[in-house]
């Protein structure tokens, strides 16, 4: 044989082997397809969304750059700079109340007043085809309003009817289908209402200290790029206190969010692949066992172990590539399949295309997983002697795995872990995942071994079919441990996800009635406070807390501009935009002093501030350091007098920044009130307050939390769906094991029938076996999943842990359904099998 022929020979042999069909390797291919499809799908979806966001970034921001000012419009000098930089669009945003003219029904709204240039990019889609400017302009002296469809329901109005916003009467002219810049508008607590900028004065909502955001968007004229323009603007007006963002800056948090979610889902997808790995290992083990005669024959005819190993490795790799190709193709199609479902949920549409990077990563994951789980069982080839042809060898000795196979498996496992960490956006999470995955494999493998040993030690029950069921769990070669491992990991993920989600939902919804206020009233003018207090005190069972409030941006930390300061990622959010601030003589409720001392109630001196301890840690600040806040263009530098640990879960009023008396009293301000009152009184109170003070807005806490809850629910659904893929992989492994043991089950059934067992009795025996398997897997998964959930809930989410039996029972039920269902499907055929072919002498 020439050297090239020798090199090709294993390939030729592998090709001949493959002609015999896939046989038991179908599960192998299915596991690869499922795992790779999950990872490739999630990656492709994330890539197409990221591309969509990048492509729509200008429309999402509404311009090439945006300058956002809180409380005050741009002064003439700032405005002049904006106006000469390109096409300018001015937008004013605030929260307000919309009411029916009779005042009987009202709703919190997110009001947006736009000029004629809006939108600079993208387009507002309305339910009725009409020109935006015409829809908002005055008709018979009445301006128009475009509303989110929810407003029509809440206020019970129809198109063409009038609503009141503040003191302005507006005609509802259409509903908003799509608003290009909605995603980056900040926290949306109420339905959107768009009006013309010219209509805003009529509302009389713009009062001193009102929570108003003035947004200036620019389509830059040819010249400097967005980043240079921002740098120039910052240099020209260093004390403007405006938030300057380019379209790329604005899209980044959204892309980051999608990236993080995609990473999390990818890890769950990888779990599916790893669970499938168990099925891959089982299939390879079964395949090698079934090929004992062929392997012995090849060796008899002079084939070396190395050659035979190469033949079967090539065969498996060929099948793996087939599976990886099919999985990647399915994954690449996922964005196409889910795009219609995501259309309403996401601000940017997925940009369809073939994204090679996520497909390559998924393929690499698939290949490494196949090798990690295949090499060990493939090494069994070395233990099959040529003499196996002449003796009926049943070698029950436990052989040590060859060092080369063990070393290669360890190296490939390390490579797999390195790939997980290298491709992760959040490295810490990736490390946790790797540790968790290894831990779960070790624990479930040990649990599986314990179940096998336990079943053996249970003794010999008198009932023969129960005995048979138990014996099937611990007989030599029983796949009990592998099934426990694969099914158990899928179930653990399901339990953990369900319990974390349940605890989160309970935290958001369940704790509410006892501790949370019913409403926050914002924008109460100082001269309205007495009247507001009078209304609340006159309402049965109502009480309220109230604090003065203003908004400002943190601009310097110890004199260093925040853009240049070293800040940990988890504290950066506090520097991105305006923060609410207040001043107080005493320590606010729900706070605990953790460093420094609280000032005396009658303090009057240099500016002092109390800061959130967690944020201070993230910004590298301690007591005695200085913090500079820009308030309406004025910079105030205060010394940090103390740090507080704040219990945000109380949902009462609290601020990260609380100033000592004597600094902010003179600044324009409004009051924020948290009102606690029984449900029955709520509507009447809101009607009375907003009827008397149209500029005051009521934020219903329950609805706000429901909005958050909906987002949590959506993310939870995505995670659960992906976890279901992991469980499906577990089911595949179980199905594969059942299929592999089919012949043995048929044989058992036939012999039992010969001895006089009825089909019902035989079925009962098989079902006991699968029921026990499901029950044990569910119990262990329930325990491990609960431990994982406690860790996430208590350590990561930092909320109270409550044991929820519902998700646990559901998982138990699912496990039983799965094992019994698959077991039943697998044994049904065994029951109906004809006895004669199995009993005839060979």
């Amino acid at each position, binding site marked *: 044989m020439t050297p090239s022929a020798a090199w090709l020979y294993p390939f030729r042999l592998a090709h001949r082997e493959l002609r015999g069909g896939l046989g038991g390797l179908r599960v192998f291919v299915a596991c690869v397809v499922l795992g790779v499809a999950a990872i490739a799908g999630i990656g492709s979806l994330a890539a197409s969304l990221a591309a969509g966001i990048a492509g729509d970034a200008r429309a999402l921001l509404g311009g090439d750059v945006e300058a956002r000012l809180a409380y005050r419009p741009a002064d003439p000098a700032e405005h002049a700079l904006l106006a000469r930089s390109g096409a300018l669009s001015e937008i004013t945003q605030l929260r307000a109340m919309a009411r029916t003219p009779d005042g009987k029904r009202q709703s919190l709204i997110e009001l947006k007043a736009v000029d004629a240039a809006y939108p600079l990019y993208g387009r507002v889609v309305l339910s009725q085809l009409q020109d935006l400017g015409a829809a908002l302009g005055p008709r018979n002296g009445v301006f128009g309003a475009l509303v989110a469809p929810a407003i029509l329901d809440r206020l019970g109005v129809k198109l063409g009817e009038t609503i009141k916003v503040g003191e302005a009467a507006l005609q509802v002219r259409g509903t908003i289908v799509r608003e290009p810049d909605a995603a980056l508008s900040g926290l949306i607590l109420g339905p959107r209402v768009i009006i013309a900028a010219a209509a805003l004065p009529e509302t009389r909502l713009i009062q001193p200290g009102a929570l108003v955001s003035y947004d200036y968007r620019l389509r830059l004229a040819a010249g400097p790029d967005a980043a240079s323009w921002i740098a120039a603007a910052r240099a020209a007006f260093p004390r403007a206190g405006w938030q300057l963002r380019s379209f790329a800056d604005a899209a980044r948090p959204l892309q980051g969010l999608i990236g993080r979610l995609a990473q999390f889902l990818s890890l769950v997808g990888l779990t599916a692949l790893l669970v499938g790995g168990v099925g891959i290992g089982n299939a390879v083990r079964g395949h090698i066992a079934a090929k004992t005669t062929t392997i012995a024959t090849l060796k008899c005819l002079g084939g070396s172990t190395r050659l035979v190993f190469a033949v079967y490795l090539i065969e498996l790799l060929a099948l793996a590539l087939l599976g990886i190709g099919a999985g990647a193709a399915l994954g690449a199609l996922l964005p196409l399949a889910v795009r219609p479902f995501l259309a309403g949920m996401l601000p940017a549409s997925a940009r369809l295309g073939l994204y090679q990077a996520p497909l390559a990563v998924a393929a690499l994951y698939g290949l490494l997983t196949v090798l990690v789980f295949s090499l060990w069982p493939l090494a069994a080839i070395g233990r099959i002697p040529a003499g196996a042809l002449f003796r009926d060898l049943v070698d029950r000795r436990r052989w040590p795995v060859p060092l080369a196979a063990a070393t290669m498996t360890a190296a490939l496992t390390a490579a797999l872990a390195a790939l997980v960490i290298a491709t992760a956006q959040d490295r810490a999470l990736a490390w946790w995942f790797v540790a968790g995955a290894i831990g779960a494999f070790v624990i479930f493998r040990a649990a599986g071994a314990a179940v096998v040993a336990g079943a053996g030690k249970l003794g*010999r029950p008198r009932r023969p079919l129960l005995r048979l069921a138990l014996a099937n769990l611990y007989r030599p070669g029983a796949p009990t441990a592998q099934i426990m491992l694969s099914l158990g990991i899928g179930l653990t993920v399901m339990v953990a996800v369900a319990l974390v989600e349940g605890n989160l939902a309970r935290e958001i919804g369940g704790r509410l009635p006892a501790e949370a206020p019913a409403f926050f009233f914002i924008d109460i003018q100082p001269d309205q406070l007495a009247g507001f207090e009078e209304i609340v005190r006159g309402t049965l069972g109502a009480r309220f807390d109230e604090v003065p409030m203003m908004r400002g941006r943190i601009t310097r930390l110890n004199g260093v501009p925040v853009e240049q300061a070293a800040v940990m990622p988890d504290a950066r959010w506090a520097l991105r935009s305006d923060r609410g601030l207040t001043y107080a003589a005493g320590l606010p409720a729900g706070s605990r002093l953790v460093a420094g001392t609280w000032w005396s109630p009658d303090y009057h001196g240099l500016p002092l501030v109390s800061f959130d301890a967690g944020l201070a840690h993230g910004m590298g600040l301690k007591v005695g350091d200085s913090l500079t806040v820009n308030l309406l263009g004025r910079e105030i530098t205060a010394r940090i007098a103390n740090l507080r640990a704040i219990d945000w879960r109380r949902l009462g009023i609290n601020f990260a920044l609380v100033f000592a008396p004597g600094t902010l009293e003179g600044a324009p301000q409004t009051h924020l009130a948290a009102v606690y009152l029984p449900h029955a009184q709520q509507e009447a109170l809101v009607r009375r307050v907003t009827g008397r003070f149209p500029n005051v807005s009521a934020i219903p806490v329950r609805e706000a939390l429901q909005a958050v809850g909906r987002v949590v629910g959506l993310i939870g659904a995505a995670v659960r769906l992906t976890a279901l893929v992991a469980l499906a992989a577990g089911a595949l492994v179980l199905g594969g094991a059942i299929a592999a043991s089919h012949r043995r089950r048929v044989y058992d059934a036939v012999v039992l029938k010969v001895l006089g067992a009825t089909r019902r009795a035989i079925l009962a025996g098989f079902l006991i076996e699968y029921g026990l398997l499901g029950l044990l897997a569910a119990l262990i998964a329930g325990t491990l999943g609960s431990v994982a959930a406690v860790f996430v809930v208590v350590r990561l989410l930092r909320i109270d842990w409550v044991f929820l039996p519902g998700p646990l029972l559901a998982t138990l039920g699912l496990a039983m359904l799965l094992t019994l269902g698959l077991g039943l499907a697998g044994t049904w055929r065994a029951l109906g099998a004809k006895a004669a072919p199995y009993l005839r002498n060979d």
Partner: protein
Amino acid sequence: MTSSLHSGDPLVVVDEVQLTLGSPAGPVNILRGISLEIAAGETVSLVGPSGSGKSSLMMVLGGLERPTAGRVRVDGHDLGHLGEDGLARLRRRAVGIVFQAFHLIPTMTALENVALPLELGGHRDAFAAAAQGLDAVGLGHRLDHYPAQLSGGEQQRVAIARAFIGRPMLLLADEPTGNLDGATGSLVIDCLFEQRARHGTALLLITHDQSLAERCERQIRLADGRIIDDRRTAPLRLGAARRAR
């Protein structure tokens, strides 16, 4: 299910039985009109070349294969009228089968394998009876051994003990020594005939071994799915059989 056999009726009646099985090359006629009767306690050997239909006939008599045409009665029951579970109950009560390949359940000990038919029938003393049965075939010291831990001869003796544990009326044995060497084989056959004699069971023994066939009172020869010879080699000893029961 109880015996429907009237005094003097044959234990087994086979009437014009045909068996056709499908194969890739088209239907194959395995049995082509077999008729025979076996009396209670009678020992019958079934001989013939490979492929003559011996094992198929045995499967039909054991209710493990349904004939394409014809009728089979065992212990007064028409097998064609019994469903799958009815046939299982009939075997549990009246028919013992010994295979060439033993067909023991690998995950059960010798004692458990033998006790199984009685346990399935709900007998409380299944294990005591099984221990006795194993003792009777000389395996009283191997009760807790698994099939894999027993020699071929021992496995077949376990299978014989299992076949006789329910005191069947009819024992079907398909080349019980086919997988065993000569010495072990004759030990097993002695064991089988001894058990048969003790229980007065009718025996249908498939064998290639002419000397073994001649230990039976009657010899039936099959060729190409038909009976070509049916002769008595020793007088029928029905009385012994009935007395034993």
